[in-house]
């Protein structure tokens, strides 16, 4: 499952979930603010180091990356052809449609590589953080940040039921196939139409009944007794390391915000000029 927690007892596992959220914020700000492939590459590398350090199953990370290859390829192509920044005097290799439309340029490629790494950073980051944080803690942190406990419960329950719902949908499809209905079309439009018309009604009516049952179960355990003053078996508390890590994270955050606009670092022109110098 995509969101399953991988138990462990490393430094990152032990961090307070609020610090983890701050860490996520710092990484996202870096990813968004930097545009240079080398700088972004370093950020991604540090993320991979975290994966290694936490002994997360590499297969699952890899499987997930494999799954998004096509999206990444398309994203890369678009960014090469239409970089959202105006390029001054780009080094153009050739045109996809001669004589002068859809240019492939060195500048475009460098920009696009940066964009792809940024994309990967954000996706991998969220996945890694969910793998080292139990869902319950993540929600608890959000509740501490002001999320109503009812929403928190809805989120946890929802995620918990994903495997159940997937199983049920599988059963519905099998039952229909057993009555001669065809899902196995090659044609994606036909396949989509089959899914949409046949799976949707039973799936929805099932999950509605399920929702009612769950609501009764939650009520019968007294959730609505007084949700705002309920206690938590494992409360979260800042430790010394959490304060230190938070300080470092804030520093990174500030640096990431200032690096490009103030110092002009981490701009994609950095790599670009390196390559151009090498070529000359």
């Amino acid at each position, binding site marked *: 499952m995509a969101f399953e927690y991988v138990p462990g007892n490393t430094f990152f596992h032990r961090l307070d979930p609020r610090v983890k959220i701050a860490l996520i914020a710092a990484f996202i700000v870096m990813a968004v603010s930097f545009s240079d492939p080398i700088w972004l590459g370093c950020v991604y590398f540090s993320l991979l180091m975290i994966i290694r350090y936490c002994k997360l199953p590499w297969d699952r990370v890899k499987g997930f990356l494999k799954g998004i290859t096509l999206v990444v390829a398309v994203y890369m192509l678009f960014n090469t052809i239409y970089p959202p920044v105006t390029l001054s005097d780009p080094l153009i290799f050739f045109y996809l449609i001669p004589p002068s439309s859809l240019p492939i340029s060195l500048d475009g490629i460098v920009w696009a590589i940066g964009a792809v790494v940024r994309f990967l950073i954000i996706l991998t980051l969220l996945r890694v953080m969910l793998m080292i944080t139990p869902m319950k803690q993540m929600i608890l942190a959000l509740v501490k940040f002001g999320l109503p406990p009812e929403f928190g419960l809805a989120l946890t329950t929802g995620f918990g039921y994903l495997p159940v719902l997937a199983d049920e949908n599988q059963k519905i499809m099998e039952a229909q196939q*057993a009555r001669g209905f*065809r899902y196995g079309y090659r044609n994606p439009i036909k396949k989509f139409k089959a899914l949409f018309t046949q799976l949707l009604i039973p799936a929805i009516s099932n999950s509605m009944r399920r929702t009612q049952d*769950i609501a009764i179960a939650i009520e*019968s*355990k007294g959730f609505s007794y007084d949700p705002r003053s309920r206690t938590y078996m494992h409360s979260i508390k800042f430790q010394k390391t959490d304060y230190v890590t938070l300080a470092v994270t804030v520093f990174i955050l500030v640096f990431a915000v200032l690096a490009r606009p103030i110092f002009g670092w981490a701009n994609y022109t950095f790599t670009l000029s390196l390559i151009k110098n090498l070529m000359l």
Partner: protein
Amino acid sequence: MIRGYNTREYGISYFSRLVGLLFQDPDSQLVCPTVEDEVAFGAENYAVPPEEIKRRVDENLKLMRIKRYRERNPHRLSGGEKQACALAAVITMLPKIFVLDEPTSNLDPIGSHMVLDLITSLAKRERRTLVIVEHKLAELLPLVDRVIVMNEGKIILNGTPQDFIENADKMAEIGLKPPQVSLLADKLKKYIPSIPPLLTLEEAIKFLPQILDRTKVKNSFNSLHQEKREFKSSNRPVIETQDLWHVYPGGTTALKSMNLKIYSGEYVAIVGQNGSGKTTLVKHFNGLLKPTKGRVYVYGEDTFKKRIDELSTIVGYCFQNPDFQLCCRTVEKELRFGPENVKLPEKEIEKRVKDVAEIFGLKEYFNENPFSLSKGQRQKLAVASILTMEPKILIVDEPTTGQDYKTGKNMMEFYKRLNERGRTVIIITHDMNLAAEYAKRTIVLKDGEVFMDGSTREVYSQAKKLEETYLKPPQITELFQALSDYGLPPDVLTVDEATNYVVEHIIHRGE
């Protein structure tokens, strides 16, 4: 009124502290991401201090024997363990009264044995009021102090288990299933008026020898019938598996080298625990699954070469839960769904829908939404909508789960008639009594292999071997096997057979 509080004046969450509820379907009551969180959830809601919650959670995880699954998603446990987890979650709230609504009806024999065992130890330890709503009476009756029988909204019996079994035949009439030994005692009353009501197997084992004429029994032969399997070997098999293996993508081996032949017109029961491969096996019969090694032939044709929709006209497969099968907006469309998928001519569809609707009494509901029907009717509709395909082989997965005895029995009688008219019927079940009563051949699966295969009598007479799969023969069969020293046949399958046998061998005191 609950403990003096009027239920009209306070909300549910006020009472859930006093009354702990355990529901039938474990999947609908587990709401937290881990077992530990689930068990703590109720206590957290009532603002119990964290230290106290931890203490209770530890204690109850141990009590329910699920401590090693602490960090697991509760939905990934087995059926019995899920229910144990849900039970632990209820106990942690320390309710004064426990109400358990059919806590074992969705579980396999191991699971329900486990849960009943836990409930008993709980009742003994806690000395709190325990209310159980249940159909499975043989295991439960000996445990309780008081029985309340309800029918159509009215209380028709309120007394001790003894009172209940004294009226065993009356209880059976309204669709309940008294323990088989109680039924036997009740039937024997006609011949021996002095017979006491029997509640447990142990009582019956003690009592029965007193009325049997030892000399008579000893002389009779040891086995009731020596009937062979009813198919002739010259018959062509309709389903044949050759060295069938199935390994799931995750690497779990579900089926190991299965070689089975099922012949035309057979009535087969496939039994085994959850995870023994029953459902995986039959999914190969209609092509939903393809072997990862080996071959499956249906009417001589390799399932690799057939699409599911082609096979669906030959093999009808009725799933366990009707809610996953119904998918149309009206009952009529539901019945037409299958035949329309395989593009039968309109005239033929109309004829089949009309015929099947008549048999099942569904005509008056033609324009109703299937999901608004009662559970029993939904189950009927699910079967009916498969029969409009007129399959030559009918597979039914757990035909009676979640139904009361009477409804279940009616469905079984219906399959029996279909079988008598020449259709091959395969049922998958946990219910040994059912398999014993109806199926002529029983196949026992264990860990993905065929563990036993033979006529139902052969299979059940080998109780020792059956025990290895944690399955038990019907109570009445157990009774006769326990008394085999007295020469009783080990392969009696139903109460009627048992009654007849005993009557023939009674000491006729008056003579």
